């Protein structure tokens, strides 16, 4: 399978077959594994990395689940192609910086991605849309068991699976969910919520941006510890916290509808207005406005059919995705202009926000008021 087909088809987790979860965008489970007694990728010399790659890659390529997969060494991919894979959450930023001696193997539906020689010899992940951590874990657990039948994994009975960084030792699992929390952000409860999640021992990171500047109201919630608990316990805890987050987010949205309806309509109206008329939109602005559009769909301002369009725009408006569409190297302004063109085009089918269609709410203001 060639990179072109990966790049032109959205991953299954981005355009799911039956409606997606309004708040949880995707669930991901990653396992870290290493071969016994061989130097970890960060310490191994180039020749050793290549030798380890040659040992691991054929086994990965041969997996049943990886039939017809996309399988490339990283030095064969251009910087833009690698960046697109990062934007799709198929490889990490760290992996994109690698070249010879590292590889990535991705299945046709883009729900499984296996990195060879990232921080560990093997970083395998399964990703699915909505909240289904158990199913996602089972998928990657099967891959792990299939690989382990042919490879000698570094394992200690007391410490568990041995990893390059002690923070991953034991189960080597990082389970995470990407959540969309515009209600909590708009009602200024997000910091308090993030702090309480941290206290339980889970990490909350803004998906883009530095520090507290969480762009697009998107956050990634994940476990921090990997030793001392088994995989089910870690996943259960994450699940419970996410369910609480969903409740809190829904409450925040209801509250806003009840007490700050005008502010909401204003936000949605402005997002719609700018995205349908602007000729230059930065990636940060696009993320934030698309987030508000998504909220608009959740609240009933826009029809449900619009969700797929917004989801695909979230991916298409990212820098490397834009660059891929053009033959010459684009400067920042050219990207901003191309981004605006794509957004205007895709949103042509969107009619103006309809405040009479608010879910669960009665119309605000006099019935004769024109839109």
């Amino acid at each position, binding site marked *: 399978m060639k990179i072109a087909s990966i790049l032109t088809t959205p991953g299954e987790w981005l355009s799911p077959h039956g409606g997606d979860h309004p708040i949880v965008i995707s669930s991901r489970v990653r396992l870290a594994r290493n071969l016994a007694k*061989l130097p970890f990728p960060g*310490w191994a010399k180039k020749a050793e990395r290549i030798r380890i790659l040659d040992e691991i890659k054929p086994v990965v390529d041969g997996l049943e689940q990886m039939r017809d997969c996309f399988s490339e060494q990283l030095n064969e991919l251009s910087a833009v192609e690698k960046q697109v894979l990062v934007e799709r959450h198929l490889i990490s930023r760290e992996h994109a910086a690698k070249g010879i001696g590292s590889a990535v193997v991705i299945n046709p539906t883009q729900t499984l991605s296996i990195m060879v020689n990232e921080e560990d010899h093997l970083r395998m992940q399964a990703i699915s849309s909505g909240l289904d951590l158990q199913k996602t874990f089972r998928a990657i657990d099967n891959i*792990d068991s299939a690989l382990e039948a042919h490879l000698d994994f570094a*394992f*200690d009975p007391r410490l568990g699976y*041995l990893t390059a*960084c*002690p923070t991953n030792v034991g*189960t080597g699992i990082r389970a995470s969910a990407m959540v969309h929390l515009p209600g909590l952000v708009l009602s200024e409860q997000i910091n308090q919520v993030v702090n309480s999640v941290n206290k339980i021992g889970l990490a909350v990171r803004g998906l883009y941006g530095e520090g507290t500047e969480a762009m697009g109201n998107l956050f990634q919630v994940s476990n921090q510890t990997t030793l001392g608990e088994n*995989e089910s316990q870690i996943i259960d805890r994450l699940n419970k916290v996410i369910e609480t987050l969903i409740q809190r987010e829904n409450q925040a949205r209801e509250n806003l509808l009840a007490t700050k309806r005008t502010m909401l309509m204003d936000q949605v109206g402005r997002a719609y207005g700018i995205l349908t008329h602007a000729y230059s939109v930065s990636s940060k602005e696009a993320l934030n406005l698309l987030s508000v559009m998504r909220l608009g769909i959740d609240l009933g301002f826009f029809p449900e059919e619009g969700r797929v369009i917004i989801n695909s725009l979230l991916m298409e408006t990212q820098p490397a995705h834009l660059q891929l569409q053009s033959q010459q190297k684009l400067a920042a302004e050219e990207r901003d202009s191309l981004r605006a063109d794509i957004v205007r085009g895709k949103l042509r089918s969107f009619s103006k926000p309809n405040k009479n269609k608010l879910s669960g709410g009665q119309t605000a203001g006099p019935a004769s008021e024109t839109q």
Partner: protein
Amino acid sequence: MVCDVCKTNTATVYLTQIVDGNMKKINLCESCSKDKGVSDPTGFALADLLLGLGETQQVEQATPTEHCPVCGFTQADFKKTGRLGCSECYKTFSEGLGSLIKAMHKGTKHTGKIPARLFRDMMRSDRLNELKRSLEEAVSKEDYESAATIRDEIRNLESEV
């Protein structure tokens, strides 16, 4: 009061963490607190991790020139990168790593998945021990018929290895 992480600057940020009734206090200077994202709720790591990082500075005083026999990694290398050289490093540096791992995680013993081959080996050795006990019992009861059957089963299992 001196910063707990860099041990040089004066501490101006006082962090108290209470988890499950256990209280931990850390004192940080302005720059270390920015580095570790203490003022930033989304970047904030567990206080335990901060304490753990402070501990690597004690670890290096133990045996600074010790090399991992398989990959040649040293504790100085670990301090520089925060990562190890190979799986054998966990044995080589087990003393220093012990307290670090304890501070980082919820427990010090792995309770999750075990590679299938290892699991089978464990099951087999458990079964062998069980059979040997039964054999002793049968012999002491002078039940030589059962003893012979058990002895054959033991031979079978042992030849599987």
